């Protein structure tokens, strides 16, 4: 049995998708697991997760971090992506279309705050992306997720998507890569991190590289990713490279090593879902925008 089959079997058997094994269900891990199962053709197993997300949607269209906490609403972008995938994979279901449109409307009504920031050397504070928490500043990861959700549900040309694209490019470091969202502080360029760099490149898709920073971000990921890279950073990094046509030949071996470590340590649905998505490389629907499942015969055995 391949590592991927083991990963997908574990995901398919998970009734509760949390950040760690045994943890309560949370929105983001549920959506990531659903996306992974849908992308690998395990549609029936994914359905209960996408339906669970429907139950969690609030009247205003958003989803909180879990059933208990209705706020903050940043995981809404993940649910939109899962519903978009479900809508294609499970045949046209108006409930999913309605849900992701409502989620998208909520997303379009939210923006990062910059009103009180009078001066900042590192980035353009007036370019609006998305905050983690409404009422605070725009940061790289929630903006990347929101941009991805807009792009992959047909709103990639909207003014908010264009502004978010500009914001993400503005947050890339001069030598490539990005971190949570600061660039230069008190004259020093900060250090890049793998996870936000991968996610930002995934969100930017095939955006033209006018400053060279996207290319240098690709080089940063190519330089730093290897078989010992921790699971989430490796998965996002590989998805970012796939989005730029630079998915490495070693990816499968690296993901196998990450799967072994994850299964041995905590087997969280969140990490297993990320591994399964990253294993698809350029065929991952988050990269290609093609929502048709790409099951392998080996994987189908476990459905």
């Amino acid at each position, binding site marked *: 049995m391949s590592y991927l089959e083991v990963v997908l079997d574990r995901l398919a058997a998970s009734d509760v998708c949390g*950040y*760690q094994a045994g*943890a*309560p269900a*949370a929105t983001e891990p549920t959506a990531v697991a659903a996306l992974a199962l849908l992308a690998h053709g395990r549609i029936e197993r994914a359905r209960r997760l996408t339906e669970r997300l429907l139950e969690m949607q609030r009247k205003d269209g958003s989803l909180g*971090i879990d059933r*208990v*906490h*209705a*706020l*903050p*609403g940043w995981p809404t972008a993940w649910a939109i992506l899962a519903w978009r995938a479900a809508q294609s994979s499970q045949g046209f279901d108006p409930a999913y279309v309605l849900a992701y449109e409502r989620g998208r409307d909520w997303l379009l009504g939210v923006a990062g*705050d910059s*009103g*009180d*920031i009078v001066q900042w050397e590192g980035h353009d504070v007036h370019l609006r992306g998305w*905050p*983690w*928490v*409404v*009422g*605070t*500043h725009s*940061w790289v*990861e*929630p903006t990347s997720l929101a941009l991805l959700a807009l792009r992959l549900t047909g709103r990639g040309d909207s003014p908010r998507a264009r502004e978010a694209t500009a914001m993400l490019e503005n947050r890339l470091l001069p030598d490539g890569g990005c*971190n*949570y969202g600061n660039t230069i*502080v*008190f*004259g*020093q360029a*900060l*250090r890049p*991190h*793998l*996870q*936000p760099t991968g996610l930002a490149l995934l969100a930017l898709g095939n955006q033209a590289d006018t400053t060279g920073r996207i290319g240098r971000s690709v080089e940063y990921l190519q330089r730093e990713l290897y078989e*010992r890279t*921790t*699971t*989430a*950073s490796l998965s996002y990094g590989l998805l970012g490279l796939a989005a730029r046509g630079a998915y490495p030949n070693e990816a499968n071996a690296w993901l196998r090593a990450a799967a072994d470590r994850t299964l041995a340590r905590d087997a969280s649905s969140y990490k297993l879902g990320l591994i399964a998505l990253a294993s698809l490389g350029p065929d991952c629907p988050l990269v290609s925008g093609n929502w048709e499942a790409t099951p392998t015969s080996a994987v189908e055995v476990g459905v």
Partner: protein
Amino acid sequence: MSTLAPEKKAEAQQDGQFDRRALLVGVGAAAAAVVGAPLLRRAWADKATVFIARNQRYDGPLEQTIRDGLAATGFDHALIRGRKVLLKPNLVEPTKKCPQMTTHPAVVVAVANVFRNFGAEVVVGEGPGHMRDTEMALVESGMQDALDDAGLRFVDLNYSQTGWIKNAGRATVLDGFHFPREVLEADLIVSLPKMKTHHWVGYTGALKNLYGVIPGIKYGWPKNVLHYAGIPQSIYDINATLPKTISVVDGILAMEGDGPIMGSAKPMGLILVGTNNTAVDATLGRIMGFEPSKIEYLNLAGGRLGPIGDGLIGQHGERWRDVENPFTLIDAPQLRGLRRRGVLVT
């Protein structure tokens, strides 16, 4: 960033007002934690003694140093037998390239062993402020291997279950805080900060380190809700609201200049131990060349959470004047005037 306007009260703040289940969980968990708190508070409330050890090394007898420090500062280890102790190191944004940024694993393991030998149930917890991939933070800091070798459990405070508890400080507009379950259930939290400068507030120690108990999943990466509420004010509020805390400071390899992330290594060879974190931070600041009363969060804490006046803090081990070694700072307006003697800039 300035204080948030009332109409822009952040989601995390509003959530506590209507999320009844979270509220009830929070009150219940907090109540459970408080059951044991009065005894511990009575035992240490008036002990504002700080222990300083010099010539310390990561491969040295740290457990002995820490035991000596706790004994010197009046810590009654009999009270902690069978209790839950949460150790909180600083792992804000670890990288192997910058060991002066994060609490060394040897200090964490030594403190854990001391408390395990006291009969406490020990867990290590952190919610890294700048990284969502906590596994990366553990690997880069060397903490993962050290905790595995020592058989210590780690809890990721960024993703833990949370409960809401009323803000006992009220220096910010925040009505309360969402604390991780492990924080609310702890009988004692041991802050394990790194001795570092901080380019916004001067320096960071036992009090500021406890920003890291705030869960990122509710407050973001960085924990921007707190920045909007005011950094010094939220440092004070968090510490006023937390259950009983004490501290052991990793001042062996410290950071000066552009801390808390980009600064330079400054070998100091120090370990500080104290059962009052305000007094510990005031002493730490004096060693680094700061005037504690000029540090805004210490000014808020002084007299409320503990003493900051030199004459009010008992000293054991080394005297702070004998190990004083001013830290360089970046030249920024908010840092000018924080020192006892002039301004040192990089």
